[in-house]
């Protein structure tokens, strides 16, 4: 089975991101939830169109990458562009990210309630 990110020529990936290999895309965590703020416009890059369609309800960055079949690093760059132009909004995780710091007990209690209700 072909996977676009792996099998297509690097040139195409280069084109998708306008030639950049990195950007401020680090603002996007794997589990940052992305929501479209506008409909696709005529002439938009097809991947951008796909993202906007996919994100009518919240979708995590990692799910977008899996659906598009593109590496996360490429997807993050496209998301940064869409964020810059106000076409998406991003809901970043609220969990503490710093090393050596545990999430607070209240959050963990909520997680436990959710898991027990599964």
């Amino acid at each position: 089975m072909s996977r676009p990110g792996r099998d297509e020529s690097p040139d195409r990936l280069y084109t998708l991101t306008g030639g950049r290999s990195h950007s401020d895309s680090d603002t996007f965590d794997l589990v940052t939830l992305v929501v479209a703020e506008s409909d696709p416009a005529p002439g938009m890059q097809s991947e951008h169109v796909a993202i906007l369609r996919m994100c009518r309800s919240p979708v995590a960055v990692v799910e977008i990458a899996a659906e598009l079949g593109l590496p996360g690093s490429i997807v993050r760059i496209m998301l940064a562009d869409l964020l810059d132009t106000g076409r998406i909004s991003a809901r970043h995780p609220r969990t503490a990210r710093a090393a050596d710091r545990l999430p607070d007990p209240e959050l963990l209690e909520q997680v436990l309630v959710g898991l027990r209700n599964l």
Partner: protein
Amino acid sequence: MDSATFERPTGPSSAGPSLADTADNGLKIVIVGGFGAGKTTMVRSVSEIRPLNTEETMTRAGEGIDELADLEGLSRKTSTTVAFDFGRISLDARSVLYLFGAPGQERFWFLWDRLFSGTLGAVVLVDTRRLSDSWYAIDRLEHHNTPFIVACNDFGGPLHTEEQIREALDLGPDVPMVECDARDRSSSKYVLITLVEHLHALSSQSMSASARNPSAQNPSATSRAAEPTPEAAS
């Protein structure tokens, strides 16, 4: 690929239910283990979507991997691709838990900070017939100060006592260890609950410790987490 494209004309909804519009907080738990330990099986048994696969291509300044690439005569110099599976559990109207099945091999670990920073904790999924597969992962989790539990996936192999396994894995008594059947939803659910209960106990301890000694840690800092960390966690 054609059939996969055909199956999902409308985006991720075909892979499972869409998230609630109110969802705004993504959480992570990482399930790490050797090849064939049952990571994807466990993700599948509790996920509300069929497990998806994605990959990260990472570049880093030269280290072991580059030397390896040179040795093998590969033209690729500083980039490595790691594929991983993941699934999802909607916990409530706002919180969504993502489960990542992460490879335990050495070449994966330089991604840990970047991909899995902010993870609640980890499950080390162990095949007791191949305990040594877990050594490296346990060592790295300890190094990264990521809290974890050990779950022994039941492959019907020879029975070991908990003591024997703990000794073979060099596990401290404070690390919970459970047996599980990764194919079974309630068993996998129990593993996740055991992990989060462990995290809760650790977190409560550290909160009360910092309450006794306020200079040690500022508890309010834990809630101010929204800003993404700048790059270069390592």
